[in-house]
């Protein structure tokens, strides 16, 4: 099947408006006759479910958590971008579009990104109307801050809990519709298959995680807002339950999987402390507004810091290497995430890491304390030369901005970041790749949609900070509710979809067989054993830097591990009860397939772009080297085994932006 991205004709700025005018609508009376399943209740799924229900569709929503409010969007900290230009610093829809395409290393679809930038301002209006308490300045107007990879302040925030506040906004919009009966909410349910009837997505098979019951649910269309697959790495900033299962099942039913190798490794996470580690914690990128990143200039000082004979605060300014400011004077500490992560890895690989394992760099707020403190002292008419007072005043300001993050750091690391610099190291954080979708957010399966992080379309090879929240809400509030109508307009006379059909029988049988196999396997090793093994292969061979040899090894090793998993995995308990190990086993089984496709995709992409860095393709200065012949989206078609997946290419055209070497110098 040839890929048709269905990008509307016409000038870039008019495409979305024109498209909305051209597509079919479903009248309000007919919307009542149409059911839509939404899987996942994060920013994308939650906002989509609420908006579709407001429009009049009957929505059935599913999440594996005990409440839709707990989806992992809640953990997003820093903020959400919008081209409001409230700061008057020259921002515009075009600039947000430009920054996002450039930040994505020219591997995203122009038309989708422009639409994203276009609706970004509406998102802020909508959220404020819902009662989302964004940060405000003393005049009562909305405050902004700056994020990596841009030269304006366009990020709206609610302290370090922006994702929480936006998700609770979407959750409240859902609650209104649940109260009205327009959304039927199914919590503690996991989707285990998509059901295709006559070539169209017409339902899902879900497992009730409390009773173990396998359920059939039908609808006229199915929407996946099921997030990313970073937990393939085992250690990541994702929630423990985040998984690829829904997306992978869709892939196995015919949805192409795009750019699986594009993974974001976030530069500012709390370093790993030991083998018991179950997850990694992010420190918001917003900290790079005020924190300066450094390692010692001399190896002898690194040694002294590691053995505890020297404190980082005692090291003289001239003996510190602020390597981002040194290498990238224009953007300094605010370079995009991929660049910052690789730079940290480069220093640590060269032996300059500052913790015991040599995998940490400093994020230092000392300069910010003094800068803010001086300003405060001046405002209050106090002595600007009293360093102790100035530092104290400055710490108060920083506390107001990032207090919860500093507290979180102290709880985890047991060090006070007001007194000593934070230690950070890159960690897996987001996946830009995902299910391939066209301009309407429809996958290659008619009636099956993918939104938010679950799709691939807007961030190219690297996502800029504060853009994930923007995309999730754009898709759910402002894009999908329009585009899905075009498809459903043909379904107004279809009537309810029966779950009593051979397609549902077959899908349910498949699900039951897999569960039976897992629960009766009687192997000798736990699910986590395999998940950790997979994580090691992914991190060591498909991580921040990749090469042909490692990737080939990874493909073989993951396939072997998968085989061993099915022979040796051991799951306690029964299938007809709450059984977390069983749920985890199903997810790890899918990661073991996705992981191989991931490595295969990385192997085929013989260039470096954004989060995908191949050792073989770098500039003499060690920067990513893109190659013109790889200016395409890799969309993989499932053919039984990951190794047999077939590559389809969507060529990327840039008509409104000049493709050039990405430079942050």
């Amino acid at each position, binding site marked *: 099947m040839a890929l048709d991205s269905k990008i509307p004709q016409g000038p870039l700025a008019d495409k979305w408006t024109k498209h909305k005018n051209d597509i079919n609508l479903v009248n309000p009376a007919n919307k009542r006759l149409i059911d839509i399943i939404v899987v996942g209740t994060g920013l994308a799924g939650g906002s989509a479910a609420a908006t579709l229900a407001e429009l009049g569709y009957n929505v059935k929503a599913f999440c594996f958590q005990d409440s839709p409010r707990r989806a992992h969007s809640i953990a997003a900290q820093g903020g959400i971008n919008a081209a409001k230009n409230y700061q008057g610093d020259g921002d515009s829809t075009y600039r947000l579009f430009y920054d996002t395409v450039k930040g994505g290393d020219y591997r995203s679809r122009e038309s989708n990104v422009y639409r994203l930038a276009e609706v970004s301002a509406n998102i802020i209006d*909508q959220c404020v*109307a819902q009662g989302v308490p964004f940060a405000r300045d*003393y005049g009562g107007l909305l405050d902004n801050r700056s994020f990596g990879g841009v030269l304006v302040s366009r990020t709206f925030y609610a302290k370090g809990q922006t994702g929480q506040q936006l998700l609770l906004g979407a959750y*409240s919009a859902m*609650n209104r519709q649940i109260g009205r009966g327009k959304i039927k909410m199914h919590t503690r349910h996991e989707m285990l298959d998509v059901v295709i009837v006559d070539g169209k997505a017409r339902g899902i098979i879900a497992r009730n995680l409390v009773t173990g019951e396998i359920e059939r649910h039908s609808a006229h269309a199915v929407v996946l807002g099921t997030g990313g697959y970073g937990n393939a790495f085992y250690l990541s900033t994702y929630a423990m339950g985040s998984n690829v299962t829904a997306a992978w099942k869709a892939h196995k039913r015919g949805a192409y999987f795009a750019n699986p190798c594009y993974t974001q490794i976030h530069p500012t996470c709390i370093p790993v402390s030991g083998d018991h580690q179950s997850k990694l914690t992010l420190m918001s990128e917003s900290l790079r507004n005020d924190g300066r990143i450094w390692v010692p200039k001399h190896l002898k000082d690194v040694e002294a810091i590691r053995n505890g004979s020297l404190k980082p605060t005692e090291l003289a300014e001239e003996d510190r290497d602020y390597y981002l400011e040194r290498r990238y004077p224009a953007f300094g500490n605010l370079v995009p995430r991929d660049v910052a992560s690789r730079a940290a890895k480069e220093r640590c690989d060269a032996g300059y890491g500052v913790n015991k394992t040599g995998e940490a760099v400093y994020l230092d707020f000392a300069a910010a304390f003094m800068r803010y403190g001086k300003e405060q002292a001046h405002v209050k008419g106090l002595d600007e030369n009293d360093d102790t007072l100035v530092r104290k005043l400055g710490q108060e300001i920083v506390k107001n901005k990032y207090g919860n993050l500093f507290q979180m750091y102290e709880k*985890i690391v047991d060090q006070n970041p007001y007194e000593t610099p934070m230690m950070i190291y890159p960690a897996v954080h987001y996946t830009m790749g995902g299910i391939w979708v066209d301009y309407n957010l429809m996958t290659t399966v008619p009636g099956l949609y993918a939104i938010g992080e679950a799709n691939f379309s807007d961030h190219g090879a690297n996502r800029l900070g504060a853009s994930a929240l923007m995309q999730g809400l754009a898709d759910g509030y402002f894009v999908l509710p329009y585009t899905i109508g075009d498809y459903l307009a043909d379904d107004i006379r279809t009537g309810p979809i029966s779950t009593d059909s051979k397609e549902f029988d077959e899908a349910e049988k498949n699900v039951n067989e897999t569960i039976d196999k897992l629960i009766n396997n009687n192997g000798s090793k736990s699910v986590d054993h395999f998940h950790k093994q997979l994580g090691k292969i992914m991190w060591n061979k498909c991580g921040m830097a990749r090469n042909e040899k490692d990737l080939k090894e990874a493909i073989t090793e993951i396939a072997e591990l998968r085989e061993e998993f099915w022979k040796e995995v051991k799951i*306690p308990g029964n299938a007809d009860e709450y059984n977390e190990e069983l749920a985890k086993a199903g997810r790890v089984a899918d990661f073991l397939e996705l992981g191989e496709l991931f490595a295969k995709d990385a192997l085929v992409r013989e260039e470096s772009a954004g989060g995908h860095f191949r050792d073989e393709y770098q500039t003499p200065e060690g920067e990513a080297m893109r190659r013109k012949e790889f200016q395409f989206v890799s969309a993989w078609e499932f053919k039984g085994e990951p190794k047999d997946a077939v590559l389809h290419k969507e060529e990327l055209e840039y008509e409104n932006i000049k493709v050039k070497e990405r430079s942050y110098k």
Partner: protein
Amino acid sequence: MNLTLKIWRQKNAKDTGKIVEYPMTDVSPDMSFLEMLDVLNQDLIDKGEEPVAFDHDCREGICGMCSMFVNGQAHGPDSMVTVCQLHMRSFKDGDTIFIEPWRATAFPVIKDLIVDRSAFDRIQHAGGFISVNTSGNTQDANSIPINKHDADTAFDAATCIGCGACVASCKNSSAMLFVSAKVSQFALLPQGQVEATDRVLNMVQQMDDEGFGNCTNTGACEVECPKGISLENIARMNREYLSASFKG
């Protein structure tokens, strides 16, 4: 360090449940409390026993999924943290640690340490929202300036993670802190005024229907709240409720 765990085991909602003792050796102080339980569970699985079921997801203190009573305190001994952020350095070698689920009539046990908190969702369905449809035409976000103090106070109330520690800590199993946090958030914002009367009446009604107890202002909820939600919210909700009752 070595520890003795005494954990509530209950197969399902119908089972009566009991405390079971588990010795733990070589616990690292850098482990989080849940990572310590992961180690226990791994050990149980290896021995062919059923692992301890507990709710958890983000493991960074924001999703509100984790919920357990540790030595008689919701989320354990540290203040302002959820149990996923509690670290073993808060305990000493030789300690005995009791681990139990939230206890409240409105939060029935599902299995071991997992309880059903859907009552919280139903209270939100009754009024925890502002009725605004999604459109591209809502007014500009800056068209109504909001006093910074009010915006900040609304934000503080809105940081509730809905974990249920307040209910579990209250001798009456009251949900007043949880409900008042949502009522306060909207009461402090101009956007929330239009539906203020119905909101507080409906949410309080639903709270009572769910079987939560009454509030006697002892403040245990505020002390144990991992997000520091203030008792002032309860006072504000009482005020809102009183004035709504008159308008009613």
